[in-house]
């Protein structure tokens, strides 16, 4: 965004890389950002200016919530007066009604980040399986082509259902990024169904897995939406204000000062900003009163259902900087002192958030994964790419740093293709990680010919030789999109075979 609105408008109008719908949205963003009506506190302004806080490009004049999570189950039960829809009687009507609602969700971006716990919604309508598959395929294709946004998220329950099986099968077959997908994992879920989900995950890089017990404890009936955000069903994530923790060391004298003075100060800045934005959305725009979702009970305006998302990134950079850690053995994710301090920082942050009365609803802590513009900034409390320790220690660290992330967090693990012959391998890791308190895990299969096929070791020198050969092969084809380049996503350590 430049200062010159005409220039911005021309740029949007002429941008050859976007679709018409995207152009329309970009134009709306310019209009929205041309006025600034949110009343921020001094503290918030200070943190916007020093770079330690950002509004996630949500816009200067928010007239809708960031995320909206309607109660689709209720919607299917009662139909909708506003949309002139009767409760569905068969799977085609159910799919049709859902699609109507998807296109009428008042949230940032104008597209749903959540399309429901699909198996639970559709199972009651599955009579003939072939017919059901046709209808579900129709739904998934429609969502992929019209919403076409990897932030759009579908959930699956832990129950083994015909609808769930069909969704997994189609997901594996279609290999499309939209919708993203999460299975609500429980230790007692049917093994066979878990295996089917893992099998799909290894081919399609989804579903991911959420720790149902933990999130249910924190959020009640919850949904995983967008990028691992967790919100109550029938609720809204009103806004997400992000703390850039990598910027905190410059505001602090030493580690103690950061912990005891800067963290409380920063929490005030972020919570103030959340309150200010919520105030605008709720009081100035009358968001709830202006949507039929509220009038028909599909979203609720009460304490439990209005979440102000407190996001954070760069815990690793924060700790390494303030403790001046260079030695790889001492840095965040490796050194005991660094990890202990990091844990204290997270605890302190949670305490401060809890102490503070929330003006609307409640605050939820969310480990944010980053935006395109970030560089040298690690998502949430993760360990930086390229510095990951052995997988067990990486998982343990992830658990420790994200204990209080009730509004979601995620960690991605790439796995060698050989793990595909062995879905139980992932099942063991999931079970272990979740029993230890992990909240969320995603897996994806990494392609590599250097396989530890069986019974032998892989030497580092072999990997290097292999990498050299691969590099010459891949140079032309590596996808150098902004996000992957800036964040070294391509350097992520491949799991399953590593030393």
């Amino acid at each position: 965004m430049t200062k010159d609105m005409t220039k911005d408008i021309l740029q949007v109008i002429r941008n050859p890389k976007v679709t018409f719908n995207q152009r329309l949205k970009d134009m709306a963003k310019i209009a929205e950002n041309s006025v600034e009506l949110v009343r921020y506190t001094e503290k918030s302004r200070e943190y916007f200016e020093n770079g330690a806080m950002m509004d996630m490009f949500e816009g200067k004049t928010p007239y809708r919530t960031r995320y909206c999570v309607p109660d689709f189950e209720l919607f299917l039960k009662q139909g909708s007066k506003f949309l002139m829809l009767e409760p569905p009687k068969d799977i085609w009507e159910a799919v049709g009604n859902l699609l109507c609602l998807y296109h009428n969700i008042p949230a940032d971006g104008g597209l749903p980040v959540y399309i429901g716990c699909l198996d639970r919604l559709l199972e009651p309508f599955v009579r003939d399986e072939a017919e059901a598959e046709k209808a579900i395929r129709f739904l998934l294709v429609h969502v992929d082509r019209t919403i076409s946004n990897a932030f759009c998220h579908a959930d699956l329950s832990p129950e083994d259902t015909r609808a769930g099986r069909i969704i997994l099968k189609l997901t594996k077959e279609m290999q499309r990024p939209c919708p993203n997908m999460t299975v609500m994992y429980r230790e007692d879920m049917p093994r066979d169904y878990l295996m089917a989900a893992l099998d799909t995950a290894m081919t399609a890089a989804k579903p991911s897995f959420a720790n149902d017990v933990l999130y249910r404890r924190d959020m009640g009936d919850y949904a995983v939406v967008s990028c691992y955000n967790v919100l109550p069903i029938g609720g809204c994530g009103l806004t997400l204000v992000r703390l850039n923790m990598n910027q905190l060391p410059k505001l602090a004298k030493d580690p103690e000062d950061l912990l005891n003075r800067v963290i409380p100060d920063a929490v005030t800045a972020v919570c103030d900003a959340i309150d200010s934005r919520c105030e605008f959305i709720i009081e100035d725009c009358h968001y709830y009163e202006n949507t039929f979702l509220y009038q028909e009970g599909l979203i609720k305006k009460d304490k439990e259902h209005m979440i102000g998302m407190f996001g954070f990134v760069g815990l690793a950079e924060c700790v390494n900087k303030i403790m001046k850690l260079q030695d790889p053995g001492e840095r965040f994710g490796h050194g005991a002192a660094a990890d202990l301090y990091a844990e204290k920082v997270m605890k302190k942050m949670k305490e401060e958030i809890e102490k503070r009365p929330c003006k609307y609803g409640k605050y939820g802590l969310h480990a944010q994964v980053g935006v395109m513009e970030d560089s040298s900034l690690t998502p949430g409390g993760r360990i930086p790419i390229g510095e990951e320790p052995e997988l067990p220690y990486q998982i343990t660290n992830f658990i420790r740093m994200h204990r209080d992330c009730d509004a979601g967090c995620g960690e991605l693990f790439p796995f060698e293709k050989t793990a595909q012959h062995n879905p139980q391998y992932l099942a063991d890791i999931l079970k272990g990680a979740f029993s230890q308190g992990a909240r969320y895990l995603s897996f994806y299969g990494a392609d590599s010919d250097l396989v530890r096929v069986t019974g032998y070791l892989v030497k580092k020198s072999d990997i290097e030789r292999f990498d050299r050969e691969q590099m010459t092969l891949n140079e032309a084809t590596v996808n150098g999109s902004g996000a992957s380049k800036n964040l070294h996503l391509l350097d992520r350590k491949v799991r399953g075979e590593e030393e």
Partner: protein
Amino acid sequence: MRKESGDSVVSCSAWTGGKEDIGKEMRAPVNKIIPFSAVDGYGNRTAVFFQGCNQNCLYCHNPETIQECIHCGACVTTCPAGALSLSDAGRVVYDISKCCNCDTCLKTCTNNASPRIRHMTSKELLEEIRAYLPFIDGVTASGGECSLRSDFLTEFFERIKKEKKTAYMDTNGQIPLWDKKELLAVLDKTMIDLKAGTEEDHRKLTGMGLENPVENIRRMAAIGKLYEIRTVVVPDVVDNARTVALGASLIADVPDVRYKLIKFRHYGVRSEYAGIKEPSDAVMEELRELAAAKGVKNIVVT
């Protein structure tokens, strides 16, 4: 059962479990531990690689695990990180905290050994892997040849069973397992190599006979302790169809045992054997069909 030239490999008194050990704590030379492995048996496993082998396969992917170090000192001089030194007693001492994993020592050694070995007790080994236990189904002992350490493994596996985890062995089958009662009592499954289908091929490839691997496969299958057999397919060196035919005949009637057919690959192979061809997908497919035709239900080609 050990071959002549291999005797030096297995002569270290610290781990043979022989008479000279009585009263002392048993130790075994550990080359490496892979915390999470998807390819060493059922589910997620911690794989422990022991140093020393009683075969000498032409295509061995880890020739540096075959022999025990003779402390000649050559690698001490070439190590760029100062991770290796010679003790007053003339033994190579390895400092894991300094090692940068450059593998220079492995390239230096002309004895098919590695100086990066830790001689560990079963208790130390368990403590080393304790953090992995929640995430794994169990452990797999591999090598080199882990059955050379059967007394040590008995002790180690007893500890593993107390942790309610499973114990697997990945073996070349040269040491008879069937009369090792104490080991069998704490061992869940074996994975046994079948490297060739005739005595002649087997000797040519491994330096050892075929009889014991075959007998081990039979006996372990009979008592339900066989997880899979494995054949590395190497064109031109052995008659792969005969190997697979033999392997299939051994396990076709045993439910659940899997046949893993592994494409030979060049990684890590000694340079003098780097000329061996990698088999094509078509060859692998033919062998899969052969095993299937002989009645094997669970076949993995990798």
